[in-house]
């Protein structure tokens, strides 16, 4: 690795103490994001995607906490920073975009004020300069006539426009990394396409890296460079998007791919993974996926699989090596 990654997460464990014991919400998460790279996170609801993003932002809701592992921004370790220091990192070095644009903006404050406040929090600029920058940002995210809409309130914007403003807010201080947690889930397809386009373009222009959380594999396919598939608090597979989509190795990823309906003529029932993802407090012994896995072995039922690297891909599955062997054959064939 010649270029040092923007973000490195190593063996991250997040625990949530509850009344029925401590839940292990994120288990042994490791990944890194290169400059300008878009890393997608997919997985079912509750798999721990948002939690990962929040852990990076240092915004875990108490009583959730980082139990072990480390998070580095460039060279700097940020998981142990005090709230005060972390505040300087947030917004300035890591931007964030959340799922619901309607909920992300303070309904009682004008758009302009929210932008200016954020700019002035991070950059030593005058009010006028901040206003100027804010207008520039609004223009950059594609809001027509920003001067006229500067004093508008969030409710006066449509969902798509609002998400553009959220993006503008996230990019105020030109952060190195943006954590986008389902930025388009609440939007309609046609608007979703616009917003994704915008995000992609901004990242490309500024060289910003992005952690893109979504549960829509299609979005990942169109947007991300690499993808991490999460299942029950672990990353089960991570690798370049094209590879993962074309040749999913982990049985869960494979099931997932088959379950996605397409526009092609329907030939038979969709691939179906029976059952549901276990809750955090009822995670089975061994591989968390083993009860739903068609090819689970005794090893799967007893031991949690280690993450193994296969070229650019890493997979947490006891059967992965065999799989890769098959693929190799296939590919060479």
């Amino acid at each position, binding site marked *: 690795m010649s270029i040092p990654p923007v973000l490195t997460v190593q063996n991250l464990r997040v625990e949530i103490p509850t009344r029925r014991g401590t839940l292990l919400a994120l288990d042994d998460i490791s990944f890194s994001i290169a400059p300008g790279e878009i890393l997608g996170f997919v997985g079912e609801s509750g798999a721990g995607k948002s939690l990962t993003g929040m852990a990076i*932002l240092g*915004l875990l809701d108490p009583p959730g906490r980082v139990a072990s592992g480390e998070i580095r921004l460039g060279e700097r370790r940020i998981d142990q920073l005090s*709230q005060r220091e972390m*505040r*300087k*990192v*947030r*917004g*300035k070095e890591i*931007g*964030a975009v*959340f*799922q*619901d644009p309607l*909920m*992300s*903006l*303070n*309904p*009682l*404050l004008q758009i302009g004020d929210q932008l200016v*406040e*954020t700019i002035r*929090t*991070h950059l030593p600029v005058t009010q006028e300069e901040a206003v100027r920058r804010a207008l520039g940002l609004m223009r950059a995210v594609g809001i027509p006539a920003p001067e006229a809409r500067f004093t508008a*309130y969030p*409710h*006066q914007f449509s969902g798509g426009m609002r998400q553009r403003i*959220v993006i503008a*807010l*996230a990019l*105020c*201080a030109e952060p190195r990394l943006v*954590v986008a947690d389902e930025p388009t889930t609440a939007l309609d397809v046609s608007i979703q396409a616009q917003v994704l386009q915008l995000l992609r373009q901004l990242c490309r222009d500024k060289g910003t890296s992005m952690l893109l959380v979504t549960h829509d594999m299609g979005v990942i396919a169109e947007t991300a460079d690499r993808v991490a598939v999460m299942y029950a608090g672990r990353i089960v597979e991570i690798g370049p998007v094209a590879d993962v989509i074309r040749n999913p190795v982990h049985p869960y990823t494979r099931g997932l791919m088959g379950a996605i309906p397409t526009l092609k003529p329907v030939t038979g029932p969709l691939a179906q993974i029976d059952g549901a993802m276990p809750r955090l407090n009822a995670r089975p012994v061994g591989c968390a996926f083993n009860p739903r896995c068609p090819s689970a072995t005794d090893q799967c039922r007893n031991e949690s699989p280690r993450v193994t690297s296969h070229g650019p891909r890493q997979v947490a599955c006891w059967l992965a090596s065999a799989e890769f062997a098959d693929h190799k054959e296939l590919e060479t064939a």
Partner: protein
Amino acid sequence: MLRFLSTRLWNGLLVMTGVSFISFLLFSYIGDPVNNLLGETATLAQKEALRASLGLDQSLIVRFFKYLGLAVRGEFGISYRNLEPVGQLLMSRVPATLELSLCAAVLALGFGIPMGVYAGIKRNSWLAQTMQVVSLVGISIPSFLTGIILILVFSVELNWLPAYGRGDVVALGGWTTGFLTTSGWKSLVMPSITLALFQLTLFMRLVRSEMMEVLRTDYIKFARARGVADRSIHFHHALKNTLIPVITVAGLQLGSLIAFSIITETVFQWPGMGLLIIQAITFGDIPVIAAYLMLIALLFVLINAVVDLLYFQVDPRVRIA
């Protein structure tokens, strides 16, 4: 906006008419002024004569419409007790009550909101918990007892504050104010504390829970994620949002401060509307009671309207685009 105002007006009218009828019903059922006017030894003939001359012998409906007809023109008759025109009498009591309520409201809001914000931000801190319990003790004591205890301590034992009345007042046009004299301010202390205690607790608890809710919303989370400072998050972003329910409740509470300070005014002999109404009730001073109820209903209608307008001010979402 026009539609909004017209709906308000219509609703207000409806409420006023309802209140006037119900308050009028009170007339026949809450004691007979004739006895108080004539003394208990008056003979039946004398009482009948007076009753007839007051028109009390007519049917309820006839009296209601007569009354309504006059009331619409602002004529509420003459108080049976003071022989003063009712309008004038009520108006002379309004300043005292308004000043007292204002002080109480300022106390309640001025202390309740910061305390609530604190308790909401640091909900598990020792101080916040103590404030919770102490404020609850405050509303668990009946206000007449609070009043008497305050008097005992600060008037009788310490002799710091006057036990009754408004002190010296200054007349400014038709308005009398106690704000311009030392004795006026001194007199305000105990009654406004007594009156504010309940509201203070209410606001504190309301702001606390609203604050706790708002602090969990996504936009606060997003503000944190943008690195906005805690102070700005608490007092700029969060507080403003908690204000919306606070406005509603504050409006209603201000209304009831004005309308129902009966106990406090009685205990401190505060010459406001509360004292007037309790005296009117004891005496059976019907014109005063009726006019008072109309005034209160009007007050609530107005407060409702003001609260709505404040919504317009605070919450851009309700402004009709």
